[in-house]
């Protein structure tokens, strides 16, 4: 399977590493023969129809050069959009930085891939948060697959769990702790009795929070994931604008103490049901609730008609974890394509 990687950051590197690691095993077990034929980022691209070596990509990046600096296959200045359009491949893996204002450049990359008949795997929440109904429709119209399991729960298969494992059951509502950073901050505050500011600084020092932390602590990231769950699992047509959102800036130690006395704690929860608009806000939940995970963990509870409450827990971020989700999506597409080609 020929793959174009668009964006070469932490997840991108994770993807190349994972694809080359235990390659023989993948080939034997899944008949999966991945070839990264192009990698594109803001500076240009590196293209080789025979497949690029992950080690060499790594080496160039380590040296502080853009990947297009490759002496043999580098194409400095070439636009990612053109690479997607012109390089022959089955799948485009879109992993550029998240932009929740315009969703660009990821939005254009994905649309271009669809138009040229390429399947898309993405971990980018921006386009999904702003235009998920549009993108799923466009994929269907162009008869290509669109997979994005890395957008919710990182490496934890939250979306597949609901879509596959709970197939046939009706999911009535979803509640989730979907952002590791805020969960870490809230856990720190309540366990070590430190202020929001101090907990945020610690998180920033440890690399859990960005220097510009608004995306996490104001609940945007959780809201994006909630939108994806609402569309994909509950079949709603909502975008980021439809989410009622409150972040954790206003959560005080006093609030946490009061909750603790009742055997509860406060978590930033994204919630959706079939009647109301998605809501993201800090809520009090019981410490014995399986949803109540600490640190950077994520947890999602699906309220089902038959299976009642089902909760899945796991690490919600990380380059290699998220790259693992990309691999799952690629294998899923390979599987579906094979079935299609043989009928």
């Amino acid at each position, binding site marked *: 399977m020929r793959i174009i990687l668009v964006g070469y950051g932490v997840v991108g590197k994770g993807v190349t590493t994972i694809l080359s690691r235990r390659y023989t095993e993948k080939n034997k077990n899944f008949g999966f023969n991945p070839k990264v034929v192009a990698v594109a980022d803001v500076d240009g691209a590196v293209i080789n129809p025979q497949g690029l070596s992950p080690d060499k990509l790594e080496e160039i990046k380590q040296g502080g050069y853009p990947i297009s600096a490759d002496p043999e296959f580098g194409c400095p200045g070439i636009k990612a959009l053109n690479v997607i359009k012109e390089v022959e491949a089955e799948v485009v893996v879109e992993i550029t930085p998240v932009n929740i204002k315009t969703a660009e450049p990821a939005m254009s990359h994905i649309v271009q891939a669809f138009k040229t008949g390429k399947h898309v795997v993405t971990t980018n929440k921006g386009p999904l948060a702003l235009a998920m109904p549009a993108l799923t*429709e466009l994929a269907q*119209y162009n008869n290509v697959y669109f997979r994005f399991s890395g957008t919710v729960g990182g490496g934890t298969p939250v979306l597949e769990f609901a879509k596959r494992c709970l197939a046939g059951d009706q999911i009535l509502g979803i509640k989730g702790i979907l952002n590791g950073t805020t969960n870490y901050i809230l856990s720190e505050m309540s366990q070590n009795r430190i202020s929001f500011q101090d907990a945020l600084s610690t998180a920033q020092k440890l690399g859990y929070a960005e220097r510009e932390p608004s995306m996490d602590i104001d609940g945007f990231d959780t809201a994006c994931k909630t939108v994806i769950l609402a569309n994909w699992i509950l079949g709603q047509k909502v975008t980021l604008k439809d989410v009622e959102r409150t972040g954790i800036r206003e959560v005080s130690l006093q609030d946490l103490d009061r909750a603790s006395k009742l055997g509860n704690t406060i978590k930033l929860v994204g919630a959706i049901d079939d009647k109301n608009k998605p809501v993201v806000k800090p809520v009090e939940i019981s410490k014995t609730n399986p949803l109540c995970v600490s640190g950077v963990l994520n947890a999602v509870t699906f309220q089902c008609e038959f299976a009642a409450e089902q909760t899945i827990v796991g690490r919600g971020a990380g380059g290699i974890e998220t790259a693992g989700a990309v691999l799952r999506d690629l294998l899923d597409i390979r599987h579906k394509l094979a079935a299609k080609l043989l009928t």
Partner: protein
Amino acid sequence: MRIVMKFGGTSVGSGENIRHVGDLVTQYSKKHKVAVVVSALAGVTNSLIETGCQAQKSDQVQIESFTSSLLKRHIDATVSAINSKSIQKEVIEITEKSVAELEKVLTGICYVGELTPKSKNYVMSFGERLSAPIVCGAIKDHKTQSLFFTGKEAGIVTDSNFGEATPLMNYTSHLLRERLDPVMEQGIVPVVTGFTAANQDGIVTTVGRGGSDYTATILGVALQADEVWIWTDVDGIMTTDPKLVPAARMLPQLSYQEAAEMAIFGAKAMHPRALGPVNIENIPVRIRNTHNPKNSGTLITKEPAENKTKPVKAVALIKDVAMVNVYGAAMVGAPGSYAKVFDVLGKNNINVMMVSSAVSEANISMVIKRNMLGRAVSNIEIALHERGGIISEVTTEDDVAAIAVMGAHMKGTLGVASKIFNIVAKKGINIRMIAQGSSELNISFVVKEKDGAAVVQAIHEEFNLDKP
């Protein structure tokens, strides 16, 4: 309120009318957020199709005379619609550019001698491309900010079924919101060309049946409008043709389903396809008269609040139709035999308007347009009446008319049909054919054409359709 307003061909038929549209839009945009959808000037789309077909026969002289008269008509309209000289100049420049482009396209068709569905759509789209800037100019002339967009620029993306394209509704909604929301929020009135759109590669398509009304309802859904207003030249949908029954009354409210049934009323009602998007999202549609804006028109909603004891709401006379009856003992109990009959008609582009067949299965009666009768009979005979064919006889009646009695509350109301047929019997009129779908929204039947008007009048009177 957020309102999408569509102005049809007659509403923008002349410069004077366009000036009036500018005035109307300005008045409403003071209180509401308005987006406008416009049709081509009356008659322009048909003349474009004709010229396209002629260009195909390599008639170059025709092109020049056509484009110059087209240019003149639009410039005349601009001059009488818009007072400001600078806006006039702006609009005329756009018009000249568009007409020059059209001339090139037609010349191209002339050279190649071929009018593909793609190029035909492109040619047809010029009607709206020429009318929209004038309407936009007329709005600006009334000191209201306005911008004009082609369907493609606004973000209406369809499949590639040229001439009958269907929008990719979610993608279209996304783009329309992204492009028109900010414009409307600033109090600017966007004017969008009706009927035309583009596929995902940017090639111009047209939405076909439903036309500009369809564009308006697409915009209504995408922009989450509170209402969609279809401005036309009648007060609303009537209980029947006022030429037949002078006491005919305007219907203040209808359901989407009823409105769809009334498509047979012709251009005065809306094509069911155009009602599709608003029906799903439950956005009300209002049919209004540009020349009588005081009248609030016919409101089409999911569940109209009205007199539920009244089973019949409207009655229509459908003229210029003919009845075809096919008989064949071989059809009885043979799966697929009806399909064969309809397949032959479909392949010959003959639309079947009404069907009736008894449980005995030995014959099917159909109503089609009268001008299709010869073609229908001939093709059925050729295909199915040979030795071994399933049809043993085809008979026709071309002096008939169909009558449709409609109303949502006919469903489950006992005695409606008996009342209808009693009236017809009392008049000494014979019913030739009857059809009622299980939706019970509509009972249709066929009588001799000479009796049609009398039957409609009698039903209108019997069911008190002149009273609310």
